[in-house]
Structures are given as structure tokens and as C-alpha cells.
């Protein structure tokens, strides 16, 4: 199985432009997450979704929006990008109803540069 796929792998974006980062999982996990990773700061949670049709704000949600129309997809949208959104973005999923309570499965990441 592919697990979690993210697209694009990398992107250079002009400030003020919008962009959607795509995330798809094939594990039928009910929960999905978006993180950003900046040098020296570890991973910070942007938004999450416990189940299709619901979303919630994480630690750093400003400037980002998400939707969860179905179980498999969890796109992250930057409506008007700013240079401080330059980061590596990771999508993750978890099936917190079974197995290890806190195990999240991460995608390969999208490296975004906003100029």
C-alpha cells in the first residue's frame, strides 16, 4: 500500500499567491493532520480532522485552511502565501480507534518556499 502521499514534492510560490497542498491516504484512517516543520522548532500542528466532515485548529492555524470532504483526502490551502510560511509540510493520519493509541503515519512532506 502507498500509505500517505503528498503533492507536490516541492514548490516555489510567489508571495500573495494561493496554493493547495494535497494529501491522500489509503489506510482508511479516521484522523488526519497537517504539520509544519521549521529548522530548530520540531513539528507544529496546523490543523487536524478527527473524521470526515470535521476539522479543528492546531497550534499554528493562522493563514491556513483545510477541508475533509471524504476519509482519504485532507488538502491544506494557503489563501495568500507569505514568506513566513516557507517550511516543510507533513501530512499524517492515525486510526486512534484501534492498535497503538497515538501512532501517526506521516507522508514524505512538501517543501514550500514563498518568495
Amino acid at each position, binding site marked *: 500500500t502507498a500509505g*500517505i502521499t503528498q503533492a507536490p514534492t516541492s514548490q516555489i510560490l510567489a508571495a500573495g499567491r494561493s496554493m493547495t497542498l494535497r494529501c491522500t491516504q489509503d489506510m482508511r484512517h*479516521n*484522523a488526519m*493532520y497537517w*504539520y509544519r516543520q521549521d529548522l*530548530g*522548532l*520540531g*513539528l*507544529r*500542528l496546523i490543523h*487536524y480532522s*478527527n473524521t470526515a466532515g470535521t476539522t*479543528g*485548529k*492546531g*497550534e499554528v492555524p493562522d493563514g491556513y485552511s483545510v477541508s475533509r470532504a471524504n476519509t482519504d483526502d485532507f488538502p491544506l490551502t494557503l489563501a495568500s502565501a507569505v514568506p513566513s510560511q516557507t517550511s516543510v509540510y*507533513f501530512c*499524517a493520519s*492515525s486510526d*486512534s480507534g484501534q492498535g*497503538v*493509541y*497515538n*501512532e*501517526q*503515519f*506521516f*507522508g*514524505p*512532506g512538501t517543501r514550500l518556499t514563498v518568495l
Partner: protein
Amino acid sequence: LAKTTQPISMDSYEGQEVNITCSHNNIATNDYITWYQQFPSQGPRFIIQGYKTKVTNEVASLFIPADRKSSTLSLPRVSLSDTAVYYCLVGALPLSGGYNKLIFGAGTRLAVHP
């Protein structure tokens, strides 16, 4: 909400045991402690998770004292391929409306030398 503190970096040699400690003084009653490993240009990968006492799996052990204010990841007989960044995560899933943080530490960069 729990904040985690880890050493920034550690060095070891092949075949040695490595212990990485994470402090989480404000851990909540329903929080679990989870450790992830991350290689360059990859997403983090789950290593081990626990709530209290000791947990062991095929790759690591996790020691959690009774007060749960810290935890120690133990990697037995490390090899060069264990060179990576290790993250301590404190939190509970599923996330609820009043608990919107999964607290990752800044990570410990482990370098294993021949």
C-alpha cells in the same frame, strides 16, 4: 499544556546503548508519550509509545517514572543506520475541541560513529 525538552544532540558509537531523555513536567493525566524517528527528507516514523512504567518492542525500550514528568528512550546496540533525529511527543488522540496541541519536542539529533 505539556511542553517537552530534549537534548539538542548526542553522539555514540556502533554497538553502544543510547539513552535519550525527554522532560515533560506538565504532562496531563490522559497524555501518552510517543517517540518518533526522522531521517533527512522523510516524515517521522513511530518507534514506541507508553503511558507509565516500561515498554519494550523489537527496536527500543521506553522508561517512564511514576510521576511521568520525564521519559527515556533506550536504543540497544546502535548502528550507523540509527543516525537520525528523535522526537518525543506528548499528547492524546483523538484530539478534542479543547485540546488542540500535540506537543513535539525540538528533537535530539543522534550521530552514531563507526
